[in-house]
């Protein structure tokens, strides 16, 4: 008979073993790998070095790629926020069947493969695609979009929109409409009501949405791979190149570990901030 205290451990054991073997061990091996010496002729050597970290953090080539990844992700986050927040608000004020139908249209693409959606954008944004035809029709002269940062940002906004809309929608659902009515009946303008009543309450949703979008954009692979072309590299596509073309695994591992640390740092610090803020607000 199992002791009552060990029951939860017993129940978690299969998942725990799997995660130790498939997540913790591989991550540990990769950290070790990132310190290994790499020789272009003989491959990975059994000596340890910090050279890869120094190279990635000091070489202007990698700096450019990290910088591009950061600004593309930041711009994507900003656009998702500017489009997603009003959209979620408008949807929440719609009547019943429309409300859920339109919400599903916005978030259901989440389940369609990223490759398919990226491919759709490469048709739309190509030189003879609908977007340039439409611009011609309006008499606007567009410069090339496909294989530039513009295409990457457009497609990323599309992929990330559900991750922004979902948390904002969730916080909008918690809103008590009678508070807004009270503000209005006390002769606040609709704008003031929005700014002083609605906005503060959906702010946590907007923040967590922004963070998820930024994190996922910064590590996105298929979108820059398919819509950025060969020249426009982001962090994930550079890691892929190091692994598959340069075969410099230790260097690729170094970049991946830096990406992981940056991602975890953003997520965890955000959690701290939110928790502290709410404890203050509630306590």
């Amino acid at each position, binding site marked *: 008979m199992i002791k009552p*205290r060990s029951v*939860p*451990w017993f*129940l*978690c054991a*299969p*998942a*725990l073993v*799997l*995660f130790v073997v*498939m*997540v913790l061990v*591989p*991550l540990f*091996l*990769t950290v070790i*790998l990132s310190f290994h010496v790499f020789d272009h002729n003989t491959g990975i050597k059994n000596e340890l070095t910090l050279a890869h970290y120094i190279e990635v953090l000091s070489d202007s080539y990698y700096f450019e790629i990290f910088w591009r990844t950061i600004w593309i992700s930041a711009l994507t986050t900003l656009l998702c926020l500017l*489009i997603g927040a009003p*959209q979620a608000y*408008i949807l929440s*004020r719609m009547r019943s069947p429309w409300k*859920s139908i*339109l*919400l*599903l*249209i*916005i*978030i*259901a*693409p989440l*389940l369609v*493969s*990223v*490759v*398919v*959606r990226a*491919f*759709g*954008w*490469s*048709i*739309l944004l*190509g030189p*003879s695609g609908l977007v340039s035809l439409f611009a011609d029709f309006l008499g606007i002269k567009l410069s090339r979009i496909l294989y530039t940062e513009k295409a990457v940002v457009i497609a990323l906004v599309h992929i990330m929109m559900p991750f922004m809309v*979902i948390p904002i929608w*969730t916080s909008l*659902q918690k809103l008590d409409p009678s508070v807004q009515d009270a503000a209005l009946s006390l002769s606040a303008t609709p704008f003031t009501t929005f700014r002083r009543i609605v906005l503060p309450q959906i702010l946590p949703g907007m923040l967590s949405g922004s963070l998820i979008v930024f994190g996922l954009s910064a*590590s996105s*692979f*298929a979108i820059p791979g*398919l819509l950025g072309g060969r020249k426009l590299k982001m962090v994930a596509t550079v890691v*892929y190149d190091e*692994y598959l073309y340069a075969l410099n*695994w230790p260097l*690729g*591992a170094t970049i*991946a570990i830096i990406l*992981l640390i940056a991602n*975890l740092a953003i*997520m965890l610090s955000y959690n701290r901030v939110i928790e502290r803020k709410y404890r203050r607000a509630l306590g």
Partner: protein
Amino acid sequence: MRNNGPISLFFSTLVIVFMLAPLVIVCLVAFTPDNTMTIPTSKFSVRWFEAVFRHSDLMTSFWNSLRLGLFSATIATAISIPAGLALTRYEFKARGWLNGMFLSPLIIPHLVLGVAMLRMFSLIDARGSFTWLVLAHVVIIVPYSLRLIIAASVGMDRSCEHAALSLGASRMTVFRRITVPMLLPGITGGWLLAFISSFDEVTMSIFVTAPSTVTLPVRMYMYATESIDPLMAAASALTVAFTAVVMLLIDRLYGLDKVLVGGK
């Protein structure tokens, strides 16, 4: 006051068009009779769909993805049920820590997981092994099945279990006849969500698949980096249709909005 003005509705329509545009366009282009990426206006043709079914690489990778999704979603569900029950029904010190670990694939970039697993697979000579590929997919889809099972377990009324126990049912009978049936919507919803997540996964898979185990998204990614032709559009349209069927199933069994948005 809670009505949307014309500007709001116009804005909302634009966003909807933006979200649907890439999916609609691949489905339209898939029916072109030409060899170029044109939208058919007068004549529709299914020749590119036929080409997909004759394309042996695409078909092999489709079956790979399907098998992989079925196996990994089933294993993920099987280990998520006991873990989900443990995490919701027992107070123990490591609970928060275990919960965080099982949901960690949502925060760890798939790229990093792919790179990490590639290193391990090459050390233990497991590249090209279907079994290890299944385990890799199980890890990234456990968060989805686990979350729905946790939600179902939290919302479950346990008095039925107590009633059955007090009437002399064994623990195993209670689990089989009461607990599992009551958790069933969460289990099936979680299984489907896990399946479609595995079926779609590309970033990690591109590192851990070998030529013999290439999945459909990976094959399509490779194909699309080299050429853009209606064959890809037809394959994409079929993928969209397949996903739509799974979505309908999720909606019937659990509620698509509940799966995607969460909450009640």
